[in-house]
């Protein structure tokens, strides 16, 4: 599915080649990061051709601004920051807003556990992720999808590292409690353990 990973020194070499004027050296970077950027945009609610067009814009802007990229830092988070900024611009154009405000205590209030949820499957996780506000969803995509560290996430989102970490922990806790409630039989079973 994804192209094989490029070690960071190879990535750096490609970026330097692009800076020196070799446009072709940009292709492996596009091939490597396309699906990650597209995944982020898709999960943010962009679909179809609009998603791919925006994905294209991300790479064009990255190429355009490559001179501003700090070679001592990883390329992935820098690219994700461009993707996130473009996503926010698109969301604002649609009249919506992205907020990092503290979340409600119960993110999933109106959904009662159903028997089918007892096996917590991918569909359940998909649904939970889709229910998160965009500002919270992006945390999961950056951490669990792109495997960025807390400080890289803070850099991408322009948020203090403490609030990134706090928000992530809090939502995970809520998610865990929700998924537990979706498996009531198992909870009961364990409650009766000696």
């Amino acid at each position, binding site marked *: *599915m*994804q192209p*094989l*990973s*490029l*070690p*960071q*020194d190879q*990535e750096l070499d490609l970026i330097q080649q*692009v*800076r*020196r004027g070799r*446009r*072709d050296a*940009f*292709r492996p970077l*596009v*091939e490597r990061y*396309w*699906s*990650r950027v*597209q*995944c982020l945009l*898709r*999960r943010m609610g962009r679909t179809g051709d609009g998603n*791919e067009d925006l*994905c*294209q814009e991300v790479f*064009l802007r990255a*190429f355009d601004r490559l*001179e501003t990229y700090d070679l001592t830092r990883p390329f*992935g988070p820098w690219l994700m920051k461009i993707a996130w900024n473009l996503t926010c611009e698109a969301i604002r154009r649609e009249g919506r807003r992205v907020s990092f405000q503290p979340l409600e205590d119960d993110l999933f209030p109106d959904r009662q556990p159903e028997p089918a949820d007892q096996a*917590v499957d*991918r569909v359940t*996780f*998909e649904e939970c*992720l889709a229910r998160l506000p965009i500002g919270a969803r992006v945390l*999961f995509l950056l*951490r*669990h*999808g*792109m*495997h*960025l*560290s*807390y400080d*890289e996430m803070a850099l991408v989102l322009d948020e203090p590292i403490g609030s990134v970490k706090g928000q*992530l*922990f809090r939502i*995970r806790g809520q*998610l*865990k409690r929700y*998924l*537990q409630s*979706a*498996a009531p039989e*198992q*909870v009961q079973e*364990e*409650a009766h353990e000696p």
Partner: protein
Amino acid sequence: MTAHTATCREQPDIQGYLDNQLTLPERLRFERHVKDCRTCNRALDEYRRLFAGLDDVCSPTSADDPSAGRIDQVMKRLPTTRPPVSVAEEPRTVPFWQLWFRPFAIGVALCVTIAGWVLTSRFRPAGPAPDAGIHQATHQMPMASPYAYSFLPVPGKPGSIEKSDGGTVSPQGTLEPGAAYRLPAAGTLFVSFAGTNRLEFTRGAQFSAVASGVTLLSGQVLCDLQPQASGFTITTPAGSIAVRGTRFTVEVTVRGTEVRLDRGVVELQTSRHRERLSTAGTRLLTPEGAIITPVSQPATGGAGTTEPTSPANLPVPQDPANTAGNLNQGF
């Protein structure tokens, strides 16, 4: 997903542990606590399942692959001229004589190097034939070693690490990039690099390490790597495992290369197949190039080793402050 009903007074940082944010002493304390605390052990399992589910659902799928011609479109739309480069990188005009002097100087340096290499290899004292397996793993030789190590032998089972050049290997130090090492049958080699990334070699592992990854010819390595280590690759005779920030074990046996993923994502690659493994599970990379799910777990238990598949039985030093001092700094 299950629930733990009781509470633990210590309230260890389970999410921080799974996110690789704890220091080595904190990790060791956590692992010791979880080993004894049933409540936290259960909570850890629950969070592991949660993390695995989130990893799976947040990672790119085939739906995110570019449609036909999309990447070509991007390449076509790239501007033909780049913005002006910074002063430091601006190409400068080179005097005519320098154009010829540089290749000449490089040629002379190359000749001297080759001559030196020929002379040293001719006058090298005869010795026992080195292990072919070990030398197979030797390749590039960067200048500085990013790998700090500490070897922990099993009490009562003496043995030392062998190195491909026959040099002695002290119990603590740094691994020489590109050099091949072989562990004794018993004992664990703890390696740390680039912050909190760590590797634990056991079962007489034969390996070499370079900046971009490890070549494992036999034995076992447990990897606990940060997301920043993405791109780090474990290469084995049956295939390679590319890391996406994860915790997993690789064991090279006669059946092939067994990869047990505990958390995170790895990409498995053989000569014939490629697979992305994003949920906890085991795969066998066969010498024929297949990637299969083994029907049953193979019998394990090399002399003096433990099964490092969960924090509860990680082979940690008795007293990390004394036995693995450099790791306290490296991890």
